[in-house]
């Protein structure tokens, strides 16, 4: 919902040419500290700056690649498509917005779901992609997420979600708000079935997605520097009419306030999840 202010961040995943690739593609300039990085090193470090630790946004498929065992991912429900339920037209029709997002990202929707293994442990994956209409949750995101949760319950395997979202998708009106209820109710069933659910909050994890399945994990992990909050910083500033403190709503801030379990740098995510699953999970 707060796509506008997210776009204003200098490290916004939506902003074009964030990585200022130098023409031959051999070198990359970190958008935070301007360090010139050899592109092979950049990729090997999972697109995290070796100098300042800046975590660059990743696409859903890049996420899957770094979190799951090689070639273990099998996508599910890739055949679900959004359509313009309300005949919604702002500066452009919703149907056109969907087509453009599909063309720009090569994705059909803002979430990819599927089954994979992590160090041999079968898991269900829910992976959001911010580039698709700000990772917003409409009917298709809600349905794919819910199906993934239900699959975890039916197959008795743990669930992992990677959040990157501006919130509910306004273009689907109240239907998108109700996806919060739908996904949370499904998590309720998973909870009662005593199957582990781990949330990974990446930049940005906000609004309706954070206020539903995005923060209902048994364990919540965040990437360094990720923006995590219910309301957008601009909305808060306008409401309270004062400047926000430095570092407000960052991963480190919510850790300090007791809202998440840990902040984990990208290359340690997979081993951390793997260890947590080994500690928490015994297949019944």
């Amino acid at each position, binding site marked *: *919902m*707060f*796509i*506008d202010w997210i776009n204003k961040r200098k490290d916004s995943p939506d902003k074009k040419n964030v990585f200022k690739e130098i023409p031959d593609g051999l070198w990359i300039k970190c958008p935070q500290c301007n360090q010139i990085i050899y592109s092979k090193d950049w990729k090997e470090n999972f697109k995290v700056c070796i100098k300042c630790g800046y975590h660059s946004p990743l696409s859903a498929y890049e996420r899957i690649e770094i979190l799951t065992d090689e070639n273990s991912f099998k996508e599910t429900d890739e*055949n*679900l*498509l*959004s*359509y313009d*339920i*309300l005949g*919604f*037209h*702002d*500066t452009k029709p919703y149907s056109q917005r969907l087509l453009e997002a599909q063309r720009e990202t090569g994705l059909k929707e803002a979430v990819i779901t599927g089954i994979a293994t992590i160090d041999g442990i079968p898991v269900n994956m829910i992976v959001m992609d911010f580039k698709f209409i700000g990772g917003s949750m409409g*009917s*298709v995101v*809600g*349905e794919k997420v*819910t199906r993934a949760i239900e699959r975890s319950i039916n197959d008795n395997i743990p669930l992992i979600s990677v959040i990157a979202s501006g919130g*509910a998708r*306004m*273009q689907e*009106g*109240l*239907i*998108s*708000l*109700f*996806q*919060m*209820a*739908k996904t*949370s*109710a499904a*998590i*309720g069933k998973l*909870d*009662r079935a005593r199957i582990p659910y781990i949330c990974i909050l990446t930049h940005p994890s906000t*609004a*309706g997605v*954070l*206020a*539903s*399945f*995005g*923060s*209902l994990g048994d364990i919540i992990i965040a990437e360094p520097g990720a923006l995590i*909050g*219910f*309301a957008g910083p601009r*909305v*808060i500033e306008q*409401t*309270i009419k004062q400047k926000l403190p430095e570092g*407000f*709503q960052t991963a480190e801030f*919510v850790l300090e*306030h007791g*809202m998440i379990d840990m902040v984990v740098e990208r290359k340690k995510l997979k081993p951390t999840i793997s260890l947590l699953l080994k500690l928490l999970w015994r297949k019944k």
Partner: protein
Amino acid sequence: MKKELTPWERILLARHPQRPTFLDYLPELFDDFIELHGDRYFGDDPAIITGFGFFGEERVAIIGQEKGKTVQDKIKRNFGMPHPEGYRKALRIMKLAEKFDIPIFSFIDTPGAYPGIGAEERGQAMAIALNLKEMSLLRVPIIVVILSEGGSGGALGIGIGDYILILENAYYSVISPEGCASILFRDSNKAPEAASALKITAEDLLKLGLVDEIISEPEGGAHMDIIKTAENIRNALKKVYLILKNKPVDILLKERYEKLRNYGKFVEEVKK
């Protein structure tokens, strides 16, 4: 014949300065209401009133968002914009209701959950998410009434139920029309257009299957006759309550899940 109102006109009615609030209806609908305070973690949020009372002969748990009447009262109640404590207090009372087998009536009237520093520090998103999850599992009937403003996650945080009623001139939206206008239409003056596009009136929501029933208001709006409006709410509640109270709990929960499960419209391509 009533003149057909535009969505924006209905929103103005829902926000009318004389529009009755939860506290106006409370004594009309319930007897012996006793208010209970505090979330047992941090504080007591006056934007959400909670307690128990009698609905006719029946015991009920009552949750209601309150904007306040006088300037002082409005400030105290933060204009009906709850903090995490409000959602946690509501959940505490709802869990008590479940423990003692008492049905829950939840009344919504909020511009939204409060966007402030303290609210973020104390986990506004987490508080709402937990309510969504827990309300879907509560083993007692839950009836929800949208009185005036159904402001996004702030409304949904006490809005999961077996039956959703909405007053004729109330609205319920994923975002305020003003917010939508400034973000999507890139012009905050386009709130009336956004209000139409978002399909947020009671009638639109009923057509979309997102609410179950509309409670009619007196001509001119609820503020023209509070007693009559309260009577309409009472009659609607009575009817639903009788149906829900006789439902075996397992069927109630199964139907609640299916109701939530079925929200959403999409196309499923046939796999090649």
